[in-house]
């Protein structure tokens, strides 16, 4: 028998840091795909999560549990909701894997790679300024051109390594890490 999606860790809510990273990774998907928001809603329906996220507003409300957001909702997400968001993220990362790979590949020409990163960083910064609370130190650090570069690369690397069905367990385990 092929190894099925291994049993998930015990159902418990994502910690605060995990929620932050999950939303930031979803934001990275939107930075790579201009229609990323629409794609997320479409993916949610295609994967059978319409009962959890019947429309874009419900999806947006779940993402607002990220403490870094301007419109931050207190509370915790249910584990089945975070599982659904992680599965959507893995599927989107799988769909955009060529773009993730192009950002990470050392075989690309340096100028081309730099240009790709500039486009990605600009788009990500624009989305962060629109949606995140700029007074949070985590947001400021991520927006910093130099200090945030390594962190942005780690987000893209995490997406590439968590893309696809096989990446769900890895990504979820990482988001459940106890501390940042």
């Amino acid at each position: 028998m092929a190894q099925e999606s291994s049993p998930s860790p015990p159902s418990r809510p994502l910690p605060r840091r995990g929620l932050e990273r999950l939303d930031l990774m979803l934001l990275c998907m939107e930075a790579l795909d201009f229609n990323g928001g629409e794609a997320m809603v479409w993916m949610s329906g295609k994967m059978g999560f319409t009962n959890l996220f019947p429309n874009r507003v419900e999806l947006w409300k779940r993402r607002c549990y990220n403490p870094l957001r301007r419109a931050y909702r207190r509370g915790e997400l249910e584990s089945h909701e975070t599982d659904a968001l992680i599965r959507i993220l893995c599927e989107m990362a799988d769909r955009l894997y060529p773009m993730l790979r192009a950002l990470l590949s050392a075989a690309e020409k340096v100028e081309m790679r730099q240009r790709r990163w500039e486009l990605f960083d600009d788009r990500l910064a624009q989305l962060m300024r629109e949606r995140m609370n700029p007074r949070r130190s985590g947001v400021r650090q991520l927006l910093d051109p130099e200090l945030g570069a390594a962190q942005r690369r780690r987000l893209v690397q995490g997406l590439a390594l968590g893309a696809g069905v096989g990446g769900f367990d890895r990504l979820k385990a990482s988001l459940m890490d106890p501390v940042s």
Partner: protein
Amino acid sequence: MKQTLRYDQYSCQLMVEGLPDVSVGQSSNAIGIITAWRLAWVGRPELEGRREHLCALMGAVLPYARHLISGVSRNFGEGDQPVTIGPGEGGDHRLELRSSQPDTPPLQICLDDAELADLVRVLDQLRMDPRLQLGLPVPIPEPLRPRELLDRIPLHRRLAAPVGGAAALVIAASLAVLQPPPAPAPGSAAPSSSSSEASRSPGQKSARPATDGGTGTPATTEKP
């Protein structure tokens, strides 16, 4: 009856050959017994081996990838394992393969992030393939322990807060000790002076000049 599973990514291709295990009733398109596998890289030597080598490769690479997602870079598969992977220079990843053939030096392959992601994807495709009806022992990803996450923070950053706090405490305590004691109030000085008078011998004179009544002018001292 021999089946071949093939998984392609940008930089590598994984092929697994095998046979169905008819003793347990597997279908003809299933693989229950792996006879050989090959991993072809662009511009690198092709890897091949037996089932245990494939298990060792998955057992090292997949946990390494999981830890990388959490920002933790460390070696996996050390010791007598045929496959070892760990962080290399310049952010690359070093994959070392030790052959079971005698007198064969270990093969070292440097992978960048994209090539590592390709390798992880082909291994995932293999283990998630329903045609592969064979248990492959891969560790289940679990949340890391706080100790493992602490190691990814540089030592000087970890020590900055406790050292800074201890230094602030020492400085504050030193400043408090160096402060001169407050001068005693006039009313509270009398009991201490009478006690000091009583402790002196009868022949000794008080060093304090006697004052005249209430005028405050010093009176002439008696000569012994």
